[in-house]
């Protein structure tokens, strides 16, 4: 704790200590957040942190108070002495918080005043993550605080090189990527999100069985689960390799391959027991399920725009609904015959 005397009033400036080392607890917490466990309450306290042994000339890095964000920044800072100013973004990452405005000019200006940053450092420069830019107006922050805002690299792993090269970002550091690994770490939460609706669907099928409208069995189960995994895991992972541009289309295409495979594995068309109605029902339902889930991955991707998503959805959403409704009807009719 530093003590400063302002006028007659003694004002404590609270500075918290942190380090570049992640503990087992931190890593376990990150894993849990990826699976949706305690994810919406994974926060650190907003305010000023000391990493290493910073002095009045050390750089000030600004970040969000989602713990996964804070940890991924500090683990890249080993061997450096820096200040970290954590904004209160309600436990949301920099990019989403910037879109909402919680990682924004107002919060930044207020937080700087609360921690009295102008008394702690002698220089007048802040380093913000580039992905915070949609929420922050650099020239306005400068106007109100006198601090110059420099946007650092997109990814925390480049921050050390950025600082050591005198705050110069290469075009590479400025570009938002979306690698196989980036996409893969997002798939667990996509899958977890499907569990609840899937259980409801299984419940309905079970009731239909009890009412004698079935039987729905193993083929329906694994066919559906396959469509789900294609939509929320396989399509995201293979994203740039699937032909076409719209996400729903990409999911539908893989789902179609799957539906044909399920039909073929169960003896269609050679097995006369396997009716055309059922085969057609699967072809209408499974690709539509995959398409819907793949479409929802637009929100996790780093290269979709609202205008693009709206355009895609105007076609995809009605098509998906019609396809699923007709497909379900065909399957039900088939179980009557």
């Amino acid at each position: 704790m530093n003590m400063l005397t302002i006028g007659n009033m003694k004002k404590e400036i609270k500075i918290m200590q942190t380090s570049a080392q992640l503990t087992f607890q931190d890593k376990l917490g990150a894993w849990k957040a990826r699976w949706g466990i305690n994810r919406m309450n994974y926060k650190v306290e907003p305010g000023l942190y000391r990493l290493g042994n910073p002095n009045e000339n050390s750089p000030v890095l600004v970040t969000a108070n989602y713990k996964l964000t804070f940890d991924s920044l500090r683990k890249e800072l080993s061997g450096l002495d820096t200040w970290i100013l954590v904004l209160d973004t309600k436990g949301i990452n920099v990019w989403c918080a910037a879109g909402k405005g919680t990682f924004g000019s107002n919060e930044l200006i207020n937080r700087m005043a609360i921690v009295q940053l102008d008394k702690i450092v002698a220089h007048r420069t802040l380093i913000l993550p580039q992905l915070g830019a949609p929420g922050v107006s650099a020239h306005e922050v400068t106007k109100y605080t006198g601090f110059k805002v420099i946007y650092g690299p997109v990814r925390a792993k480049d921050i050390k090189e950025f600082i050591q090269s005198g705050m110069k970002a290469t075009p590479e550091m400025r570009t938002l990527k979306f690698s196989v690994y980036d996409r893969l770490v997002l798939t667990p939460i996509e899958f977890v999100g499907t569990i609840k609706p899937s259980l409801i669907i299984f419940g309905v099928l079970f009731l239909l069985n009890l009412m004698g409208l079935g039987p729905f069995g193993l083929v329906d189960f694994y066919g559906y689960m396959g469509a789900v995994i294609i939509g929320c895991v396989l399509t995201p992972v293979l994203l740039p390799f699937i032909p076409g541009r719209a996400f729903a289309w990409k999911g539908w295409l893989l789902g179609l391959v799957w539906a044909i495979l399920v039909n073929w594995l169960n003896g269609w068309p050679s097995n006369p027991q396997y009716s055309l109605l059922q085969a057609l029902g699967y072809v209408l339902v499974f690709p539509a399920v995959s398409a819907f889930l793949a479409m929802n991955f637009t929100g996790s991707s780093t290269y979709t725009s609202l205008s693009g998503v709206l355009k895609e959805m105007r076609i995809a959403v009605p098509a998906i609904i019609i396809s699923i409704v007709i497909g379900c009807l065909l399957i039900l009719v088939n179980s009557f015959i």
Partner: protein
Amino acid sequence: MKHQYLKNVTTLKLDQSLCTGCGKCTEVCPHQVFAIINSKCSTIDKDSCIECGACVKNCPFHALEVRPGVGCAAAVIKSWLTGGEPSCDCSSGGGCCS
């Protein structure tokens, strides 16, 4: 492999007459949409624009315009069901805010 989303959809507009060529937009754009050519900003890859609004917010001369928004189908569905603008609010699942 470069990701490519739908073409000719962005609402991004640039008024070159207001631009001073300061280059702030090239600093904040996460998809390298802009380049400074002959001390003026040009859009060199408009189809990569994701309408995040970073350039508009950080242009001191108001030379840029966009309808900012999130390219998120779940947010759009939610806005259809509840009214209002699609916003990034993943408190009920979805992977974007992780």
